[in-house]
């Protein structure tokens, strides 16, 4: 019994970290490269890290389950860039981003690694991730507003009216 609950708690803890990590990975992937570069300059220039997999462009097959009433199908591929690096000999930073920007993938992987490091996590969350989230939200809201403005009401006309 004891073991069981312990395991569960561990699992929950892990999944909580993963949810956090999923969030920041998505934001790093969607960020503008300029924002990432500026943030890197702010940090200690001598952070010890090395590549495990250098930024590499490849493909991901995009699959769709269509309207859900039939088997999934392969819609087509998309270019992605993958990068894995090791920060401070311990934390594996991972990035797979849309497109073929090698520098973006490298920076995203670096920040993913640093964000796992307790010395950097809180600082980066506050200064980078929260800012990125804010920017993303603003962008989404602005698009949403533009789109909402094009909502129409169609009226069916009666003859003779």
């Amino acid at each position: 019994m004891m073991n069981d609950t312990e395991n569960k708690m561990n699992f929950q803890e892990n999944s909580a970290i993963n949810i956090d990590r999923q969030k920041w990975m998505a934001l790093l992937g969607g960020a503008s490269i300029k924002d990432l570069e500026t943030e890197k300059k702010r940090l200690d220039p001598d952070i010890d890290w090395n590549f495990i997999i250098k930024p590499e462009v490849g493909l991901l097959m995009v699959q769709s389950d269509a309207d859900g009433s039939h088997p999934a199908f392969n819609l087509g591929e998309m270019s992605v860039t993958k990068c894995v690096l090791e920060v401070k000999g311990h934390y594996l930073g991972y990035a797979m981003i849309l497109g073929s920007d090698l520098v973006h993938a490298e920076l995203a992987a670096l920040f993913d690694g640093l964000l796992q490091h307790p010395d950097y996590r809180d600082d980066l969350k506050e200064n980078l991730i929260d800012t990125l989230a804010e920017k993303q939200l603003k962008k989404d809201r602005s698009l949403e507003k533009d789109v909402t403005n094009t909502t129409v009401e169609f009226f069916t006309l009666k003859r003779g009216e």
Partner: protein
Amino acid sequence: MYVAVKGGEKAVKQSRRLVAKMRRGPETVPPIRTNQIEHQMGLGVDRVMAEGSLYDNKAAATALKQAQGDTMEAIFLVRAFRTTLKRFGTSAPIDTQDMQIIRRISGIYKDIPGGQVLGPTYDYTHRLIDFDSDEKKETPLKNQVPTVDSTEQDISPQQMTRVIDILRQQGLMDTASPTTPHKNVEDLTREPLKLPASRSIRLQNLARGDEGFLLGSAYSLQRGFGLDRHPFLGELRVGYIAVKYTPPELGFEIIIGKIKLTECFMINRFDGSENKPPGFENGYGLVFGQSERKAMSMALLDKSLQNSSNSDSKTKYPAQDQEFILSHSDNVESSGFVQHLKLPHYVDFQSELVFIRNLKKEHDKKKETCLEPSI
């Protein structure tokens, strides 16, 4: 039969030089940049991505520039480019219910939850060429068309129920069956087309097929070559969707990025058969980028090929015929075969010449012998 031809190296080099010169045009005009194409010729880029079967704005824009705007040449370049890249994996099936919508309309319900959202469309523009567009100073958009402050509440995508689901709730349409795990999905880029093809293969084929061919074929259906009933546009949506993938190294799902898609549901009446109750049937279209023509054509063809894959129905028209549609939809294949006629066929033609000369000789001889008695 083709014969290898030697020589021409110098001419080929000069031809390449000339094509580069033609592409550049007069040097008094500044060169176009790929990011200008990417952001200002977006629909052209979308088409190259859809038919190149590779979602990569930068690659598509660069290919368009390199091909001097020749869409099919650009598609060819993109297809060639994708063969040089390693595939990392397959995404989780994207769920279009989560789409961040920029356009969404329905032709069958006036009032749909979430409303009819016109979004960016040319449907309501005057088709007048604006010859002054170059001279116009860049006026901020808001001065041209004032923005409206919408007093309505924000519409979140979650509220935009799919029209097809409304029909399903009413029991007028087949309900969804669970999706098969992605490992079993057939892939045209791994296995050659085999007929009859499964629906997965048909949809993949149509999604990367030539827009013109799909449109013409769908049009033929509508004009009576295969459709005897009016189809209805259940829903057309354009928007962004997050592609998710689980890297085996991580073991949990991450969002790779958002891609733009056009999705179409085409509704057709079904009067019922022995095994199936009456209701509506769905034709489905899904395309990279914004391409409504293509998504709609795809949905019409999906339906007509579904019908013809039932054993009891006969194919009478080209657009109902799997082989006709699926084998001829790919424009890289078709342009390759048509254009191979430019290659040397000198020996083939020599044999044609010999053949025709002999026939002609025989023909002339016959004529002579026919004429003889009358002299």
